[in-house]
């Protein structure tokens, strides 16, 4: 038995697959991410191979592999799968130990969770039925405005007079945005309007679980500065984000994998 247990967390999301290798559930050894694409099983296997390559390890070095995300059941050779809600709670706690609320905005779903002092989820609300309030909404916006998704956050920060986007549906919002452009509204104002629209959707979920400091943002949209600003504007509170925030699900899986491993070895 190794003195330092290595666990991997693989988060197979609708847009991106994230993988991490952790030592003793406390230190990040390596991480990797890639686009999920149409085949989640392949994405999971590739993300694991990639993180092992970055860490200079092999599968045999890993004591435990936990998968999460919508494609978690497709992860071949996993030791266990854990829901993304549980993992994001743990992952947010790992990044910001004083976290009590977690907002997770992914490509196809958004969730608000309230967690206790141990990172356990007390209450959660989610929308995974439609693209309103999720990353795909911004993809549509970027398409309609012919700008890169990666640039949207920066563009939105230049806004002085955000445009109200009244359509909730991503597809209908696209047409609405085209009308705003025709009417001469500034791109940055429209983009900020879109971020505020997403913020409104997820804050509505957050209010249902109860708002409590500190609030941590996880998921793919955590890397978007405009999203952070929109949330802070609407919520009137500081939002925790870290450069690794989008990895929170995989971090949580690796941490929980380690907890599970300890129970198993303790029992043995």
């Amino acid at each position: 038995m190794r003195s330092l247990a290595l666990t991997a967390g693989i988060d197979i999301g609708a847009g991106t697959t994230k993988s991490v290798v952790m030592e003793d559930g406390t230190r990040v050894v390596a991480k990797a991410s890639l686009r999920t694409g149409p085949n989640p099983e392949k994405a999971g296997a590739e993300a694991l191979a990639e993180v092992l390559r970055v860490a200079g390890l092999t599968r045999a070095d890993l004591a435990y592999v936990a998968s999460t995300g919508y494609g978690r059941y497709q992860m071949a050779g996993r030791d266990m799968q854990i829901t993304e809600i549980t993992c994001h709670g743990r992952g947010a706690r790992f990044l910001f130990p004083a976290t009590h609320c977690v907002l997770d905005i992914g490509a196809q779903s958004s969730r608000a969770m309230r967690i206790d002092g141990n990172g356990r989820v007390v209450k959660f609300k989610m929308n995974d039925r439609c693209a309103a309030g999720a990353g795909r909404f911004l993809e549509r916006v970027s398409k309609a405005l012919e700008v890169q998704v990666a640039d949207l956050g920066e563009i939105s920060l230049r806004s002085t007079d955000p445009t109200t986007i009244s359509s909730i549906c991503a597809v209908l919002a696209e047409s609405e945005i085209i009308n705003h452009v025709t009417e001469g509204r500034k791109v940055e104002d429209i983009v900020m309007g879109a971020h505020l629209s997403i913020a409104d959707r997820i804050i509505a979920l957050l209010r249902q679980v109860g708002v409590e400091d500190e609030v941590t943002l996880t998921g793919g949209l955590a890397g978007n500065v405009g999203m952070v600003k929109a949330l802070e504007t609407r919520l009137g509170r500081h939002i925790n984000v870290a450069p690794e925030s989008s990895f929170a699900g995989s971090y949580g899986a690796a941490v929980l994998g380690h907890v599970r491993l300890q129970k198993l070895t303790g029992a043995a």
Partner: protein
Amino acid sequence: MHVAGVDVGSTATKAIVMDGNRRVVGKACGSTGASVVGAANRMFQEALKEAGLEEWEIEFVVGTGYGRYKVPFGHAQVTEISCHARGANFLFPHTRTLVDIGGQDTKAIAVGERGDIRDFCMNDKCAAGTGRFLEACATVLGLTLDEIGDVSMRSSKPLRITNVCTVFVESEIVSHLAKGERIEDILRGVHNAIAGRSVALLRRVGIEPEVTFTGGVSRNLGMVASLKERLQCEINVSPMSQYMGALGAALFAIERAENIPPGERKIEAAVAEARGGEEPGAHGGH
């Protein structure tokens, strides 16, 4: 006397020119695009041209559809719900339930004997189950909106489409394609999914025969088939179904111009002509 009805929809604009005997003498349909006023003007002019008339010869114009207040030459505006009910009552007098599937919304309307509205229900909050939904599916499959209905009819093993959101359905279709599923089976599933949503909406107003299907999506044979299957009854559709709102608007225009109460007169010949030359009663569903 001549009147016109102009239906400015989210996706297509339709115009009808009608004579005093309620005969459709000119019609036009084109995409609305970015300029609502431009589209209304263009379709009105085209319909006038087909009728061989000039604008001054039109006594009354009723605008309908989401852009009805922007019809610059309109004398009055009537909601598209009233116009569809009125148009359906004219073409299919026994219509009691109306399903209107347009570019960006779906409506279920309970219609009275005189083409009056008993109840209605609509989805205009999201693109699920609308023309936009079908368009997105067509695009993902590399087909046009006009092709998908026919392709779907070739299906022998319809797939179940589980997503409601248009954006998510695109991904679902991509994964079905990746698994090697057949395009016709995917499309049948798409049409069945929309039929399911539409019928759920119809149930909220109550389904009573006859059922008439209007709006741009009613041109899609696959959609007609899926709706029939789901409703387990015949459905009235005609080549004029897409023009139903404009037709209703023109009928309101006549009533306004003549100041006669709604549903007072019915002219069988005009009905037959509007249906595309068929005798009244020869059409399905009676």
